[in-house]
């Protein structure tokens, strides 16, 4: 393995019987010597064995006990990165019958680094495991398990966290048995079919299939969130308020449109009992005296004031002239009935 070295420092001055490791000759008295990794050299011999020049910046490469300048060493020995074409000094990735800088070895589809995560050869390309699985699924229509990266027999894959896997990589949350493709998801946990059945999966009131994710309980039934819809417009309520009538659920708009019981005071569809009076409808709690807001019911004695209810107390406090007219109007209306 070639070694990159720092410059060797002068080791001292000539000693009688030392000989240069390069030229095998002895040193003159007071001649400077160079010590390079334990070898004693003439200063003139401490040069690149290829170009015989001193090392620029003192940087040299040693191979087979011979010293090279950077340029010659790369030309003679260093591998070239297939991606960027430059020499690879340091860690070399040898893959796909070529050399790569670790940072240059990337998935050909998603460009994720492959140096540390491993790669798969796919039709002459280096791919990450995920892209390879996708490619395989694209080509064959079969799922590749994201856990072990092998094919999953048709119809036996489990979609978990959005990715296809062999069910047997997981265990039942309840009994810990290894799962097969009949396993079920409930919230975020996986269960074997037996344990799941024991928990009683609710059946959707619309499609009659089990509700495995979010369940809506309404009208005495369970529903898939997206199957609990307005009986008129068939739009899902998605948690919005709905109005029940004869076992069917309606959105506010269509409940109002179809059944028309809108409270004159709050202008909302009336839920529960309806007070029907004076050609209008009211929520029970909104049928109040127009003068003092006191609660009224159909048995309370009230006067009609422009088709609004006015309690007896309020009526008594009205200007005399108005009282008379109200009374007269009531008598006329009474006689018409």
């Amino acid at each position, binding site marked *: 393995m070639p070694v990159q070295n720092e410059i060797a420092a002068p080791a001292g001055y000539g000693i009688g019987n030392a000989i240069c490791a390069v030229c095998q000759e002895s040193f003159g008295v007071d001649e400077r010597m160079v010590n390079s990794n334990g070898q004693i050299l003439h200063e003139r011999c401490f040069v690149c064995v290829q170009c015989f020049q001193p090392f620029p910046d003192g940087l040299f490469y040693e191979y087979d006990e011979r010293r090279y300048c950077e340029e010659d060493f790369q030309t003679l020995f260093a591998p070239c990165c297939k991606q960027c074409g430059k020499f690879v000094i340091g860690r070399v990735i040898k893959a796909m019958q070529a050399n790569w800088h670790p940072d240059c070895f990337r998935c050909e589809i998603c460009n994720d680094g492959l140096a540390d995560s491993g790669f798969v050869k796919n039709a002459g390309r280096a791919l990450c495991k995920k892209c390879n699985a996708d490619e395989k699924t694209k080509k064959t229509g079969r799922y590749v398990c994201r856990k072990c990266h092998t094919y999953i027999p048709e119809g036996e894959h489990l979609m978990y966290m959005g990715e296809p896997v062999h069910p047997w990589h997981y265990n039942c949350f309840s009994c810990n048995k290894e799962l097969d493709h009949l396993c079920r998801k409930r919230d975020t946990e996986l269960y074997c079919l037996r344990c799941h059945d024991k928990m009683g999966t609710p059946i959707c009131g619309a499609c009659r299939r089990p509700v495995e994710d979010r369940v809506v309980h309404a009208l005495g039934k369970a529903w898939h969130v997206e199957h609990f819809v307005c009986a008129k417009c068939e739009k899902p309520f998605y948690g919005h308020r709905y109005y029940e009538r004869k076992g069917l659920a309606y959105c506010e708009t269509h409940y109002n449109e179809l059944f028309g019981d809108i409270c004159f005071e709050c202008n909302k569809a009336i839920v529960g009992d309806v007070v029907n009076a004076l050609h209008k409808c009211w929520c029970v709690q909104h049928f109040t005296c*127009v*003068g003092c*807001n006191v609660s009224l019911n159909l048995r309370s004695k009230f006067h009609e004031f*422009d*088709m609004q209810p006015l309690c007896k107390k309020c009526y008594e406090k*009205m200007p005399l002239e108005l009282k008379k007219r109200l009374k007269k109007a009531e008598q006329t209306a009474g006689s018409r009935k």
Partner: protein
Amino acid sequence: MSKSVKKLVEETKDQGYTELDLCDKSLNTIADIPGLTQLRHLVRLTLSHNRITSLPESIGALENLEFLNVFNNHIEELPMSLGSLKKLRHFNAAVNRLSSLPRGLGTASGLEILDLTYNNLNDKSLPGNFSVMKQLRALYLGDNDFETLPSEIGELRNLQVLVLRDNDLIELPKALGNLSRLKELHLQNNRLTALPPELGKFKHHSCADSQNYMTQDGLCSG
């Protein structure tokens, strides 16, 4: 002001009640009730059957007010700040002494029921911007002094109830025919000699619905 009023206001504040009923408390004004306009959470304020002559501008601070009832008082003028009560839905100022309405009223654009029965309002009383109240479902103007109505009234498209009885109306604007949701129209005791034909269309259309109601007993014969 009686001690009980002060106590009621304090209690409302301390308990965070959203309704305050000061009905029949012999009040001449509410401007001197300490802390009343600081009840920011108040949703309903009932001041019926008092002798209040005006409402203070500071009532505009009751920003959560949805129901304001000043039925049967002596109010002659309403404050501009009424228009800043953006949540106000039901305002009852019937049986008062109003001869004008503040410009600000139109900007209380959330109003659904506006009761101005039995006041001294006339053609000049309606603020120019009253047709901005697009949410208005019921408008009570009975027992006033209107001789005509502006045609902008036809822009209140949500109007279901319009009471105009006991005024001095000579004619009605054609635009009334635009009020396609109208179910109740009270016209008795005016000086009307004819209804605009546009209204006849409405009448015909709406009579198909048994809920609709139209009184025209007071129509003069000629």
